[in-house]
């Protein structure tokens, strides 16, 4: 049985259109809470005294802490026709540490969209790139994510 494509022209029109920016404030408490939630006891993420003596001179955020930050709303929104969503994976590039007191501006855009049959039926893949920029206009990280959606049978 051939599956009809669920990718519409409206969805294609959203490709490469950057979202509105959103500024996220980084708080020391949020870093420590995140480190606790992931079960990571690294002093750089948990212990201000120990972190102060490190080469960073203070607390830094664990690598995936940026997952707690949101971008602004999409200028061209793209909705999957499928109600169920899975996260397919992330690719991160890091350039600068994230510290308490940072103000991180987050923008995201859809970089590509495709579909193929999988174990849960026809699966729609949306690749997004999210950029994190600090208050000094330095890109601290880029995250490329794969969102997968499907129709529960």
């Amino acid at each position, binding site marked *: 049985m051939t599956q009809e494509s669920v990718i519409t022209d409206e969805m294609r029109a959203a490709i490469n259109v950057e979202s509105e920016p959103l500024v996220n404030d980084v708080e020391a408490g*949020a870093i420590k*809470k*995140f480190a*606790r*939630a*992931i*079960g*990571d006891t*690294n*002093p*750089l993420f948990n212990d201000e005294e*120990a972190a102060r*003596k*490190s*080469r*960073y001179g203070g607390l830094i955020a*664990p*690598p*995936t802490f940026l*997952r*707690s930050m*949101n971008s602004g709303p999409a200028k061209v929104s793209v909705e999957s026709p499928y109600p*169920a*969503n*899975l*996260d*397919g*994976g*992330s*690719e*991160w*590039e*890091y350039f600068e540490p994230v510290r308490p007191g940072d103000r991180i501006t987050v923008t995201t855009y859809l970089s590509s969209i495709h579909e193929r049959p999988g174990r*849960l039926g026809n699966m729609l893949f949306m690749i997004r790139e999210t950029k994190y920029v600090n208050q000094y206009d330095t890109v601290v990280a880029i995250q490329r994510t794969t969102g997968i959606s499907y129709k*529960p*049978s």
Partner: protein
Amino acid sequence: MADQVYFEDVEEGQELPEIRKDTTTQQLVMYAGASGDYYQIHYDLNFAKNNNLPDVILHGALKNAFLGQIVTNFIGEGGTLKKLNAQYRGMDVPGTPAYVKGVVKKKSVENGENIVECDIWLENSEGTHTTPGSATVSLPSRGG
């Protein structure tokens, strides 16, 4: 801080110190709160089952965090994480142990930086690699 690993001390094929993870439903709720990811498949069993899932499942991004942890543990304060990749191939459920593992794949010097590439993965109690990934780091040199 733990002892620093130096570029000279690392060999291709070397294993990264593994981490055992005993993820509970409570930890999934903590992660939902800390990350802001409130998708119900991670804490609402009925919702998960209505989405054809066997149980509530670990957030992919939580497993990504586990992969980050084995690398930041390994490189210590003196190392720098440059790239981190995770692919969520299989689902993981709370209540069973999983193991974060890794191996040094390649050493090279690029633009004066001591680069080490690692394969990293989350392995469930049946030995399946549910979450393969990779990392690129730079390490300090003994020569300073």
